[in-house]
């Protein structure tokens, strides 16, 4: 009977220790997710962050329950919880800073935060709790030894009780020894298993940290190249050609002045391209969180800002009732503005007609922008979404070929995609898929929930 109890205690100890490891692991995962988000601004990193939060919450609740009879451990838990909450609050604040202010501010918050200090204290407290469980287990093993010694004493006295009793006692001892060996074997297996898991996890984390570091480096390099290395020679070209025109303009003939004008124009266009490239990269790095947004309201705003072009082309714009979707409002309006802007830009001579439609799908909504313009040949239906790819000369239709590339990147950042569908009677229909926003809580509610998760228990 008591051997079954002893085994139970061994299992209990390792359950508590595994749950405590789970809490630490959850915190590390949350932090890894947070770092990833700060580096990239990609919402996909908030997945591991959320899972980390859940693991921490569940781990603490489980330890609370498992050690309900142990005052000392309960007290340690009372000390651990505010540390964990403080650490998680800090992570969440930094995610908010990254989201609201940007990469530099987020990275600065990481550098300056007291995070490591909290994490060290969390580690110390969990280690103390694990040592306590170990100590209890050792104590119970000593009791087990004592019980086995008692059994042997009975055995010696048993001589006078005859062979039968001796045999029975022998069986008991045998059984006890066997159970003990089993329990010890179980401990060894559990130990080895834990060690292997820790080693695996450590290797995995090191690999992930290396990946993050690399992508961080690439990101920084790109931002640097775009904002400095490309701008500097461009400044030199633009400035000196302008200086040439300013100082020697009256000494040159018309042809020379025309050449200078081309050089100045070229450098200005290159500047536009650099800025386009930056805004393209910003879709991924400067995005805001996805919240429920009214597509109707966004379209109203877009039509207002396109008013001039719509009036000049006498475009007729019709629309379905449009749904609530889960979106970054700024990016959704950029997406619609690019598509409707294209519909007006690439028009044929007759009346411009644009229709914005919405269709429910299994996973969300398909929003479409249909026009009666020049259309796109089916063989180009992929190419048009590639950055700086143009199907026309600049004199036919101005532009750098960035609009649809940005649309594609926005659609993908929202977990959807964008494509072109053949349109009866010419023209083109662009469709993008996007998640439904109707059943989601408001941004404030999501925020509150996160805060409660970080501080409860």
């Amino acid at each position, binding site marked *: 009977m008591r051997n079954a109890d002893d085994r139970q205690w061994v299992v209990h100890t390792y359950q508590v220790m595994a749950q405590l490891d789970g809490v630490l692991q959850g915190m590390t995962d949350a932090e890894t997710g947070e770092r990833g988000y700060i580096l990239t601004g990609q919402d996909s990193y908030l997945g591991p962050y959320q899972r980390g939060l859940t693991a921490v919450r569940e781990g603490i609740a489980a330890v609370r329950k498992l050690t309900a009879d142990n005052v000392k451990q309960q007290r340690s838990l009372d000390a651990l919880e505010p540390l964990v909450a403080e650490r998680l609050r800090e992570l969440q604040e930094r995610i908010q800073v990254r989201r609201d202010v940007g990469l530099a501010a987020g990275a600065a918050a990481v550098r300056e935060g007291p995070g490591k200090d909290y994490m060290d204290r969390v580690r110390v407290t969990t280690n103390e709790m694990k040592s306590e469980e170990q100590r209890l287990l050792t104590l119970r093993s000593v009791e087990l030894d004592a019980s086995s010694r008692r059994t042997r004493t009975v055995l010696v006295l048993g001589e006078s009780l005859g062979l039968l009793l001796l045999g029975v006692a022998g069986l008991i001892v045998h059984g006890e020894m066997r159970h003990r060996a089993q329990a010890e074997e179980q401990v060894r297996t559990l130990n080895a298993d834990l060690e292997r898991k820790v080693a695996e996890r450590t290797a995995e984390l090191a690999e992930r940290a290396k990946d993050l570091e690399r992508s961080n480096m690439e990101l920084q390099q790109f931002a640097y190249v775009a*904002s*400095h290395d490309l*701008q500097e020679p461009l400044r*030199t070209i633009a*400035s000196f050609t302008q*200086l040439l025109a300013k100082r020697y303009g009256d000494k040159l003939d018309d042809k020379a002045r025309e050449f200078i004008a081309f050089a100045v124009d070229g450098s200005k266009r290159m500047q536009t391209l650099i800025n386009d490239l930056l805004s393209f990269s910003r879709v991924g790095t400067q995005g805001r969180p996805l919240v429920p947004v009214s597509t109707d309201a966004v379209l109203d705003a877009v039509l207002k800002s396109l008013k001039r072009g719509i009036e000049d082309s006498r475009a007729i714009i019709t629309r379905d009732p449009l749904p609530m979707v889960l979106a970054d409002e700024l990016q959704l309006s950029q997406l619609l503005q690019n598509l409707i802007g294209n519909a007006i830009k690439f028009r044929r001579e007759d009346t411009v007609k644009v229709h914005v439609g919405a269709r429910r799908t299994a996973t969300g909504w398909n929003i479409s922008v249909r026009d009666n313009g020049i259309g796109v040949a089916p063989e180009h239906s992929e190419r048009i979404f590639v950055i700086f790819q143009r199907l026309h000369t600049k004199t036919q239709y101005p532009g750098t070929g960035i609009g649809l590339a940005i649309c594609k990147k926005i659609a993908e950042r929202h977990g959807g995609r964008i494509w072109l569908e053949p349109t009866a009677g010419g023209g083109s229909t662009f469709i993008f898929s996007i998640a439904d926003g109707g059943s989601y809580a408001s941004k404030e509610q999501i925020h509150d929930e996160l805060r409660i998760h970080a501080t409860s228990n």
Partner: protein
Amino acid sequence: MSFESTPHPIDILLVEDNAADVRLTEEVLTESKVHNNLMVANDGQEALMCLRRQGKFKNSPRPDLILLDLNLPVKDGREVLADIKADSDLKRIPVVILTTSKAEEDILKTYNLHANCYITKPVDLEQFVTVVRYIEDFWLAIVRLPGNGKR
């Protein structure tokens, strides 16, 4: 607004590795109404040698204003700034950061190192002329700086 006329030329130290930028700044400064004398250091080490009047800068005057680029060979502009501001003799010379970088971390870092102001070089020539003019007006005519007894 009338500024005090300066009786002697103003000495400016330009720390810039890009020859084209040096030339452009020289050109813009020749159009200046303030009589000035431009010294050029092509990297951070040269800048400090100039300020400490070492080597070929043995007879150079102490500058009234430093225009400092951030991305320099040999010794980075941020290090030069830190050295100047840690030097009790040099720290009062106003340092204007003049760079192509718009990075927030550069702005923050240089102000933390006590840069006197931070300016991003504009692409357009006319805007650059305006910026140089403002630097001159502000640092060489409007503000009052402690006399350094250099002359």
